[in-house]
């Protein structure tokens, strides 16, 4: 294992649903190294997505700590978290989450725009990324004109646009058929390995999980015995 990228200590996340409190994540301890490809597996409701959102600074734990490169995310303000998400994290969602009114190219540009990149660089870089995911010809298409697999490839290009340290993928194959899903995950892992990026992949598909270096099985918000890959 290389340098430690993430260190999660006693992370608990509870949600209030009416009168009852639901514990989505229950006292999780976890360490993830740089350039590691990790699969978080488990049935739905086991807390996989919650864990991923804590790692991506999309949410804060109710108690416990998430350290990213030694920095406690809880101590960072909204602006610093935004910068972190922009430069160090890349997200891939189950529902793709492309901006429906923007073309494939513009969706990638949307990730690059806050970096303040010049317009020409922006378009060139976005076009290059689309080429990498094999969608050069579909650059001017709107998400509604793309298939699920194509949309997810645009999302991968978008996630990789700022050369982040980590790619966080939440059920990236959930809305795809198994063949397309496998292709998408292969593409993601291949591109990330090239860039020596860390990938945290949430899935309930054992085949997909097998493509990771390591699987982290979860149940009822708890991390089970880690299984070395």
């Amino acid at each position: 294992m290389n340098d430690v990228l993430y260190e999660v200590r006693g992370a608990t996340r509870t949600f209030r649903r009416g009168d009852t409190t639901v514990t989505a994540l229950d006292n999780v301890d976890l360490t993830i190294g740089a350039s590691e490809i990790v699969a978080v597996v488990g049935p739905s409701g086991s807390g996989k997505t919650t864990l991923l959102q804590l790692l991506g600074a999309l949410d804060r734990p109710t108690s416990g700590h998430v350290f990213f490169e030694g920095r406690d995310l809880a101590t960072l303000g909204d602006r610093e978290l935004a910068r972190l998400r922009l430069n160090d994290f890349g997200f891939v969602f189950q529902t793709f989450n492309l901006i429906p009114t923007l073309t494939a190219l513009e969706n990638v540009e949307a990730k690059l725009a806050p970096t303040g990149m010049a317009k020409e660089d922006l378009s060139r870089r976005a076009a290059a990324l689309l080429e990498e995911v094999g969608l050069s010809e579909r650059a001017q298409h709107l998400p509604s004109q793309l298939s699920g697999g194509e949309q997810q490839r645009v999302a991968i290009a978008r996630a990789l646009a700022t050369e982040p340290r980590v790619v966080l993928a939440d059920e990236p194959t959930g809305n795809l058929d198994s063949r397309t899903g496998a292709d998408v995950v292969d593409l993601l892992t291949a591109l990330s390995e090239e860039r020596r990026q860390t990938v945290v992949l949430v899935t309930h598909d054992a085949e997909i999980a097998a493509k990771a270096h390591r699987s982290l099985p979860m149940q009822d918000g708890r991390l089970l015995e880690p299984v070395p890959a």
Partner: protein
Amino acid sequence: MVSCGRVFYFRYLRSELLRRRTRTILTLAGLALGVALVIAIVGLSRGLDKAQRSALDPLSTIGTDLTVTRSAQQEGAGFGPGGGGGQLLDANQSAVTDLSKLGKPGTHFVHDFFLPGTQLTFPTKQTKQIASLPGVAAVSNGLVLSAVHQEGVVPKIVAKVKTGGQQLDVFRRIKPPTAAEFAQMQACLQKAGVGGAGTQPNGQPQQGFGARAGGGPLDSAAARKCLPARMRAFRARITTPEQTLKQIVDPPQTNITSSSYTIGGVDPSKPDIALVTPSQVSRGRYLSHAGGNEALVAATYAKRHSLKVGSKLDLNGTTFTIVGFVKPPLGGQSADVYIPLRKLQSLASEKGLANVVLVRAKSSAEVASVQKEIEKTLGSGAQVASAKQVASSISGSLVDAANLSHDLGFALAVIAAAAAFLLAALLTLSSVGKRVREIGTLKALGWSQRLVVRQILGECLATGVVGGLVGVALGALAALAIGALGPSLSASSTSGGGGAFGLGEVLSRTATTSVSLSAPVGISLLLLGFGLALAGGLIAGGAGALRAARLRPADALRQVE
């Protein structure tokens, strides 16, 4: 840092507006409607104010400060001869009695009756009294009459009534017999062998004729013969002489139709201060100075009766040529038809009489003192009205509309503005509400809160500007349409209460004027509407965006679209 990259944000903004066309059009339409509504309502309200000012500013345009009239309601101490209501009643009833003089029954007739209405007439000589008061600059006489135009078949209004022939019984008390008569009676009775004892020679008979006296009972038949002749024939039968009376039968059953209008006698030698002035002529010309058989008619009356300049008016055999239309202001002594004063005086058999004196003060500051002076001089029977008092008697749709615009116009404008503002806000809020997930995605991509809010605000600004501009155009068009279609509002002024003499409406004179409505729209109003839409959109957009952008991205992403 971001100067060059900004181009992306504009493209994003444009894409968002153009590719969500239905939502954008809906938002724009709502905004435009709200803005147009504010502009149209405020414009309309202003238009009503303007119309009211121009139509209801009575007398100010005709150089008259005060009008002096004499009303029947205040009898007695008036000025001029005659005593109030009785005289007026007689004058107004002449319309009924004159029917018999129209012609032979069964023939067609056209006749105009001129009635003084509720304003008593007085000799024009009295005007000089007013003219000599301090502060009075000019005076003029006017005669305003209610005219009843009747047309139809002369009714058979004569009936034969036979009277007399009755028998009357008359009873009279007869004087007692004198001493001479008494002596004669006694002699007569003695001769008849009845006897006359117990009586005094020259006094009342103590026991009457039926009293027993000396010898034998009284023979009544014999005694009656002895009465003096006048006492024998005190009963009389009177038979009244027979005669035939001609009497008016009321009401005449015929096809007579009557319509009423008001007619004013104008002194054409004093056009500046007359009942109508040359400045009120809207078409044609004013009456000639000499005062021939010329007439002016109110424009509204002319329209109602399809009269033209040059049309002839026949008033009881005298033909008048309409030389012009006038638009008299309301509230004064206005009428439907104006002819020279002398002509009206002779037509209406009111020679040398007037019922209005128009007074102009030397300066506006003296109006009040002149009014008091006239009231003092003429006594309580005179009614001196200033232009201001006259204005308060005006009623009609224009006044109602203007009052409405005063009372409700402001409220309506506020409501419309609030509606436009709320509409803008709600449309924007709903539009932002549907994009919470997109905002969550943008935050996950690393967009800062400021960037997200700026983007949404940019969209709101764009829709606000476009929607506001469309609304401004629509509002201006609506105002133009109102001006072009020009819904006509009328205002009328009624003087005199007719009910007093039973002739009702005929006696109360009503003057009507109409003003076509416009909705003036100024730059400030357009800016107001525009600003409201923009403010509504920006405030709501900003609030909605801020709320969504403040959510934890995880929460925003969980939102279902």
